[in-house]
């Protein structure tokens, strides 16, 4: 191995790499050959300066041979360089000497050497930085995004899992696979951007059963998450059967930094339910009858999308605010539920459609995102023909796919699986590919197991 410690002087001016001359092994270049350091620019001899600096440092133990990992590594790394230096040394030395001479008008022979050493250090430093970048950069970035400065803590992803688990039907291999994969997907996304992930256990509970219903489960889960993450501002509800396709896109850059452009508040822009808007009632104030509320993005407290039949709450955002407290409180009401439970097939979604229409205060703070911003459907949901408003478009790299209604006659697992593979294919990055390759193969094997297990 070339890293052997036996001294073998390279051609040219002899051994000049640090590390093997007496007193070397430290990270400072104190062990250079005396010929290369006879005079410092100021005229003080190198030896004298070195002695002084030793005095100042007062760390005799620091120069102990091979005392630390870094010094050993540095020697190893630098040991690869001498031939390069040896080959070009004399020429460049002259060149540098000339320049130094020209500039300073004095004989500074060793100056060029020092410069060269500085340059090799620069190369070395860059190399180390590059290694560090490869190994730690994503961690640093993630730590930063999680910190108070990064803004990641303002977002919480709430994933409804284990829907009616264990009571309505036993979960089979496919259900487990869906759950595991979907959670993993959101974990990766949350980790990358410093968001919080709350996996909500939607186990069938008595208080949410038809005869006992005390509230909507989604509302309770969101309220719970708001208590748990007091620093968070926005809460993103995601159904289990969703897949985040573009994990390199942050919520900030995708939606929240551009609330003005991305959100429409006038439902007439896309109005599959033909909701009357704005409200005509003469007794309402200007805000209640406004087409776009007050037009200020700060008053947006809920963002959702509409599919071909109306509101879709498979993927929506709620902001911590008094408005949201009131919505979560009044969303479910026993008197309303008693009258409407036969009509409200989709529970909270239908109830929300209802209150949006019947209570003007709700409209003032609700904004809509075009469906494909946060809630693209696969073919088969909302029709089999490719609809540019509704269906996932690979070319546009839609961010989230929601396999809405896949439990009714479609195959949830194969849809999720296909979109997962597509997402992996689309996002074959160079560096992340390297970092995640082991994990990717692991997952590959994992999913094969699931396929086999059916």
């Amino acid at each position, binding site marked *: 191995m070339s890293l052997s410690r036996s001294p073998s002087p390279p051609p040219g001016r002899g051994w000049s790499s640090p590390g093997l001359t007496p007193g070397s092994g430290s990270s400072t270049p104190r062990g250079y050959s005396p010929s290369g350091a006879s005079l*410092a620019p*100021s005229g*003080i001899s190198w030896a004298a*300066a070195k002695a*002084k*600096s030793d005095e*100042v*440092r*007062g760390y005799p133990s620091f120069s102990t041979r091979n005392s630390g990992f870094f010094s050993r590594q540095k020697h190893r790394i630098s040991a690869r360089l001498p031939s390069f230096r040896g080959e070009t040394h004399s020429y460049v030395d002259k060149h540098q000497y000339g320049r130094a001479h020209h500039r300073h008008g004095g004989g500074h022979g060793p*100056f060029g050497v*020092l*410069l060269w*050493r*500085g340059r090799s*250090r*620069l190369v070395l*430093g860059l190399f180390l930085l590059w290694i560090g970048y490869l190994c730690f950069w994503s961690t640093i*970035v993630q730590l*930063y*995004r999680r910190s108070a*400065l*990064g*803004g*990641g803590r*303002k977002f919480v992803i709430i994933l409804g899992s284990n829907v009616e688990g264990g009571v309505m039907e036993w979960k089979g291999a496919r259900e487990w696979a869906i759950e595991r994969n979907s959670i993993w997907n959101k974990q990766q996304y949350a980790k990358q951007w410093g968001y919080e992930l709350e996996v909500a256990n939607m186990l069938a509970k008595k208080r949410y059963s038809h005869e006992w219903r005390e509230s909507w489960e989604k509302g309770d889960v969101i309220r719970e998450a708001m208590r748990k993450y007091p620093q968070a*501002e926005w809460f993103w509800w995601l159904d289990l059967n969703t897949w985040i396709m573009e994990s390199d896109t942050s919520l*900030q*850059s995708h939606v*929240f930094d551009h*609330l003005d452009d991305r959100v429409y508040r006038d439902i007439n822009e896309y109005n599959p339910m033909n909701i009357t808007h704005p409200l005509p*009632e003469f*007794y*309402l*104030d*200007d*805000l*209640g009858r406004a087409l776009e*509320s*007050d037009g200020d*993005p*700060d*008053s947006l*407290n809920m963002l959702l999308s509409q599919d071909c039949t109306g509101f879709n709450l498979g993927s929506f955002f709620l902001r911590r*605010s*008094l*408005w949201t*407290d*009131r919505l979560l*409180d*009044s969303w479910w*009401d026993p*008197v*309303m539920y008693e009258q409407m439970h036969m009509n409200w097939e989709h529970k909270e979604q239908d109830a929300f459609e209802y209150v949006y229409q*019947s*209570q*003007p*205060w*709700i409209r*003032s*703070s609700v904004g809509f995102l075009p469906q494909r911003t946060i809630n693209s459907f696969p073919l088969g949901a909302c029709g089999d023909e490719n609809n540019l408003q509704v269906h996932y478009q690979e070319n546009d790299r839609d961010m989230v796919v929601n396999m809405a209604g896949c439990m009714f006659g479609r195959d949830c697992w194969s849809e999720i699986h296909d979109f997962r593979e597509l997402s992996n294919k689309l996002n074959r990055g160079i560096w992340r590919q390297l970092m995640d390759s082991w994990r990717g193969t692991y997952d590959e094997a994992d999913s094969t197991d699931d396929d086999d297990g059916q």
Partner: protein
Amino acid sequence: MQFALPPRKSVPGARSSRLPHYRRKQLKTIAIFAFAVIFILYLLSHFSSSSSTSTSTSVAPAATAGVVIVTLLDYEQFSESYISKIVANREDYAKRHGYTNFFASVSDYNEAFGDSPRSWAMVPAVRHAMARNPTSKYFFHLNAHALIMNPAQSLKSHLLERSKLESVMLKDMPVVPPDSIIRTYSHLKEKDVDLIVTQDSEDLNPGSFILKNGDFARYFLDLWFDPLFRSYNFAKAETHGLDHIMQWHPTVLSRTAVVPQRYMNAFSDSTGASADGAYKDGDLIIRFPACGQSTTRDCPELEAYYKIWQKKYKSERDS
């Protein structure tokens, strides 16, 4: 504290300008990298932080001052002379304290409440008053079968002041008498109160309440007026609707102060009134609940009290 390095002064010739060139270069490199890292972090923070941090929910200019008295008149049911008495009574009070009157006609809201009982009209009427007076702070709804008997008393000193309200509000009392398991909050502060209401012997009584302008008022009125509440056949229509909302929705209850009945809703006699809810001389308001239920056009009971008020009003005006 122990310093690892002795002070620079004690080492002659060790000033920074004398540092070997490579060391300076090293420092320069480090400085450049440090700068680059800081710059990148700055860029990240600049681009990744969400645009707004405020969680403010106020979507309308905050109301500053002023009281609007909302009275709902049923021109189809009341006689003209009765209406003129009520109007005179309200206008006198408004003039004394610089309040604004908002008289609404039930028939204006026919379409709004549709098939539900006419008494529901008071909810859109208050909403209407708010739309017409967006800068007023308080909206005082007072039933048409009521008289203001102590017009010298301003609402502010009588009820709205912080010390006054906090001392008179009923804490930890059943929301709906006599024994609702939901009780009013015991730690409510004046600044959190958006609605002031009273109870009679059986219910929260919406015949007289004060509502503070703002997001809560919109929320409360819209929720109360929801078509599913109106169509539910509550025996006492909007009164039971209010009882229901108050007991099921803590976001409403937590902003509501219940005050003793005589502060703003004294009944003409003790029938149906809460304990100590019957009118006594000096009370601000007298209500005639029986008039609302009877089918007579006017309210004969009111006559006597109107005369008392008139006499007092006249003597005060003359003096």
